């Protein structure tokens, strides 16, 4: 997935753009399906930049809930982007305009790419390459989804609901490089799943960060045998 330095290759960036394109199509179809004006769908994609937030809104409306709880749910699901923005804020030197732009399109894969980069300059490059690829795909997918929405119908029939989780699992596997990151990742997933049946949507994402508190107490020893050689070497050795 990544080079040993953690840089995504061009082909991976195209795949990420394709994945968010699919997400954009899905979100557009769902939002149009709950009678959202196309202009609102497009503008929401540009200014709010949160497909999961829009889907959370639609889930409440489709479940018979009101507009206020739907908006609360959308904002709660999107609140994690604040925490993601926090964790890249000091990763490389940024002027205010860059901070504003970076927080606007902070997505999980881009933040993860910035965190595993070896130095500030490559963190910046990895972040923007990933974020712009994903953002471009997302906006294009939204636009195409607005035009096609009713033609595709239920996008889960063609497996599009599996696309973003697949991007995330790929991201996690690239970023889990030491024992502490593995504990944070696995712990975060378990906390979120455990809370999902009880807590309002979005809150499990925020509370999952408790796993980072525990993980920080663990020594960041290597997860795989050959440290520094990069995971690819180890994977080849297993084959």
């Amino acid at each position: 997935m990544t080079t040993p330095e953690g840089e995504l290759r061009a082909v991976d960036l195209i795949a990420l753009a394709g994945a968010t394109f699919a997400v954009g199509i899905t979100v557009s179809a769902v939002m149009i399906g709950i009678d959202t004006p196309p202009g609102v769908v497009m503008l929401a994609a540009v200014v709010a930049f949160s497909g999961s937030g829009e889907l959370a809104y639609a889930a409440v409306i489709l479940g018979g809930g009101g507009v206020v709880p739907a908006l609360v749910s959308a904002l709660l699901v999107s609140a994690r982007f604040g925490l993601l923005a926090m964790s890249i804020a000091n990763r490389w030197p940024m002027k205010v305009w860059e901070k504003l732009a970076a927080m606007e399109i902070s997505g999980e894969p881009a933040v993860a790419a910035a965190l595993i980069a070896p130095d500030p300059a490559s963190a910046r490059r990895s972040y923007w390459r990933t974020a712009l690829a994903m953002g471009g795909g997302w906006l294009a997918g939204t636009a195409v989804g607005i035009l096609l929405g009713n033609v595709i119908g239920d996008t889960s029939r063609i497996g599009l609901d599996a696309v973003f989780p697949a991007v995330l699992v790929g991201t996690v596997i690239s970023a889990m490089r030491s024992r502490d990151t593995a504990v944070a990742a696995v712990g975060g997933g378990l906390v979120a799943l455990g809370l999902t049946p009880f807590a309002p949507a979005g809150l499990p994402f925020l509370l999952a960060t408790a796993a980072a508190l525990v993980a920080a107490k663990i020594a960041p020893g290597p997860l795989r045998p050959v440290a520094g050689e990069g995971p690819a070497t180890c994977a080849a050795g297993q084959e």
Partner: protein
Amino acid sequence: MSWLGLLVFTIGNLITRSLGMFVLSRRVGTASDGAPWTRIVNLVPLAIVTAVFAVQTFSSRGHLELDARVIGVGLAGLAAWRRAPMVVVVLIAAGVTAGLRAL
């Protein structure tokens, strides 16, 4: 979503993102300073990535659910573990999930 809803959604989003970028981050040092708080913050994204992954894979609208998506994403994860390129990972997820649902 109405135009008013969009306004609320946008402003709320800007507030939470700004809180993280401009307020919470003040307590965080640079990546290499080794301070305890910085270490925690550097691990936060990993916890969030798997939290979102787990919820989007194993649940639908607030209840846990195991369906075709779990198998599609599971095989995609296996491919990612074997260093498959992202495009293969994504195509496996969508293809397997769609295929199982078509059965």
